[in-house]
């Protein structure tokens, strides 16, 4: 035997892709879990909301059955009502109602968010998507633990010429939410002096729509910029980021939507992520 063939395969990438798929599966099942949980939470929320409304109604001197019971017990309902009002008790019940109703809106958002397992292309209003993203970011618990999103000034710079995009809006919202959260976290953790600002900018560029998420945070150096979309690349502490957020975003934008996503940044000044999507959901021929 005069020849031997030795084959060496670098399987690093394959292992990474397999790991990424496992992670994606995990995230999908979390989405499913969220949907089930949301349904279960709507029931106790009904209890809170209905009970609060009944409390307010049964305190009101205007309701005939209330007046009858008060009279039978020799209670002056008008004065009881004034007492409850002056001690701020009616206001507390109003707060319970408003808080529960806010929770129910968050749940409705979560449901809408976790529902899309198959790509569903529909015309979506760009402004509505950005509004949803800001609302989700403001109620994000992980973000809240470290950072108050209300401290971030959100600047809207919308192009009236860019109204709708044909896309899977929940996927695009996922991408935008990820960018907004990254920006807020970067500004908080780097000790960027206030005001922290995120500019949401939209522009129509011919047959494409451009959406930008720009912050005035610490910026990203050139070397890191080249790697941000790599799976498992993260600058965050162990356990904080999986390094998958931007690579999943990259997949959603370039593969699913045939668009582009890129980053530009000046260290010390801030970072801007730019997404371009075909208006009609596919690249113009």
């Amino acid at each position, binding site marked *: 035997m005069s020849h031997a063939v030795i084959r060496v395969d670098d399987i690093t990438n394959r292992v990474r892709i397999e790991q990424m798929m496992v992670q994606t599966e995990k995230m999908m099942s979390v989405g499913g879990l969220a949907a089930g949980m949301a349904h279960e939470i709507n029931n*106790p929320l009904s209890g809170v909301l209905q009970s609060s409304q009944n409390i307010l109604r049964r305190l009101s001197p205007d309701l005939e059955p209330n007046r009858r019971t008060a009279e039978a017990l020799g209670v002056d309902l008008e004065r009881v009502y004034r007492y409850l009002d002056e001690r701020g008790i009616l206001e507390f019940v109003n707060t319970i109602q408003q808080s529960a109703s806010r929770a129910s809106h968050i749940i409705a958002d979560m449901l809408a968010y976790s529902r899309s397992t198959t790509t569903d292309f529909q015309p979506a209003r760009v402004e509505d998507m950005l509004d949803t993203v800001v609302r989700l970011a403001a109620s994000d618990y992980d973000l809240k633990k470290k950072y108050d999103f209300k401290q971030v000034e959100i600047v809207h710079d919308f192009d009236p010429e860019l109204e709708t995009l044909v896309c899977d809006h929940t996927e695009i919202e996922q991408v935008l939410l990820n960018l907004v959260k990254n920006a807020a976290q970067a500004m908080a953790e780097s000790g960027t002096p206030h005001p922290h600002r995120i500019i949401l900018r939209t522009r129509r560029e011919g047959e494409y729509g451009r959406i930008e998420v720009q912050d005035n945070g610490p910026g990203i150096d050139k070397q890191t910029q080249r790697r941000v979309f790599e799976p498992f690349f993260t600058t965050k502490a162990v356990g904080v980021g999986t390094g998958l957020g931007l690579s999943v975003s990259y997949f959603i934008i370039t593969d699913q939507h045939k668009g582009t996503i890129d980053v530009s940044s000046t260290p010390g000044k801030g970072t801007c992520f730019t997404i371009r999507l075909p208006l009609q959901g596919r690249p113009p021929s």
Partner: protein
Amino acid sequence: MSPRVLIVDDEPSIVTGLRVFLEDEGMQVGSASSGEEAVDIARNDCSFDVCIMDIRLPGMNGNTAIRALHEICPLLKFIIHTGSAEYSIPDDLRAMGIDERLFFAKPVIDMTPLSETVAALAIGRV
């Protein structure tokens, strides 16, 4: 005549919340915690005008319960009250006249529109 309402829901706090509101509006309210129990009630008493039906119930689900109740009491009207986001009204229920106007998603933040719909249904105004 004050409307007679049958609430079918397995969550006691929801039954109570609705009952109290509707009773304050002068309605007469009965309740069942399952579709099977509602069917038993209807077999003995077909005097209810309107049934507020939950969908996810132990045993028989809300859609099936509506079909069974409709068999027993053909004049009974229905309102669907569910927390399930994926719910859509089946075609045979639509054929019975149940459409989006009679659908209320949980949690209902203000019970007034629900109560007004019950009152309108009871006098055949929907």
